[in-house]
């Protein structure tokens, strides 16, 4: 037992192998959060260089990828901090992602979910029954393709806030700190991201799945 451990910890790291084994994963992870391939490549490079220097602390404990992702998370956070220092926001962009077209524009029911033009078909623009469980959906690669496609049109900062909150599970306070925004701005951003994503995956996944 102790023999294997020594063997692993004295083994020289092969960063070239890291690139081959984990490069794509780390890069996609970073692109999904930073939404810029150039920036993503930079943080992956910073991550692997930091990993090289800290290799003695790793000692082959746990999975190599988990260890690298841990370092990458910190590098991504640093990158967000640098970006937020460069530009501060006073107003949240992306109001169109609240999809006002789904609601009644006039009349007594103004501001309520709109019924579609042909009520005899029971059509409406409100949320449809999805008829699936999160667990079942989460296992399908195609769902995640739709999900990341739906995030694309959102402004960078809104998509990043959403990912940090809903995928990474950071707290509101942590995200405000990293992105340099107020909690009220964060809530507006999350509302817009959720409103858009909900509608987009409903149309492109749930309704499309049923039509098959």
């Amino acid at each position, binding site marked *: 037992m102790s023999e294997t451990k020594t063997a692993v910890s004295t083994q020289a790291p092969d*960063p070239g192998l890291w690139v081959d084994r984990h490069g794509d*994963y780390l890069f*996609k992870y970073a692109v999904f959060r930073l939404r810029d*391939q150039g920036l993503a*490549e930079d943080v992956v490079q910073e991550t692997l260089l930091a990993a090289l220097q800290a290799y003695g602390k790793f000692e082959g404990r746990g999975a190599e990828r988990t260890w690298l992702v841990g370092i990458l998370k910190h590098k991504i956070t640093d990158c967000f901090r640098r970006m937020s220092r460069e530009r501060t926001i006073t107003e949240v962009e992306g109001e169109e992602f609240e999809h006002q077209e789904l609601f009644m524009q006039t009349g007594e029911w103004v501001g309520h*979910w709109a019924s579609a033009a042909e009520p005899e078909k029971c059509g409406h623009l409100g949320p449809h029954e999805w008829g699936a469980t999160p*667990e079942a959906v989460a296992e399908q690669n195609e769902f995640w*393709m739709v999900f990341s496609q739906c995030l*694309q049109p959102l402004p960078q900062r809104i998509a990043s806030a959403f990912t940090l909150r809903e995928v990474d599970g950071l707290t509101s306070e942590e995200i405000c700190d990293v992105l340099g925004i107020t909690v009220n701005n964060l809530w507006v951003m999350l509302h817009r991201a959720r409103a858009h994503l909900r509608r987009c995956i409903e149309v492109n996944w749930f309704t499309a799945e049923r039509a098959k």
Partner: protein
Amino acid sequence: MEATFWLARRLPPCTELLPIISQALEREWTLRERVVMRLHFLYCDFCERYLKQLRFMREAARTGADKIYEAPSPVTPALSTEARNRLKSALRSGSE
């Protein structure tokens, strides 16, 4: 139907309530908000379903989103050969 309309006219419309519905995932509603939402949900199944779907998205995202980096996808491309080589040479000079 008439009671619904009477109630709906006295409460904010869906467009004003949706930001608060989203905040249910961030904080606890105040007592006032809880009352308004309960009354609103009495006649608006859509908003109630909307809240369920926001929770659905969170649950799915926290359990399975790593599929995004595992599966090949046109949305999040893999490293190009050039990028791969750039990384390797940066690491070579970093390890010397």
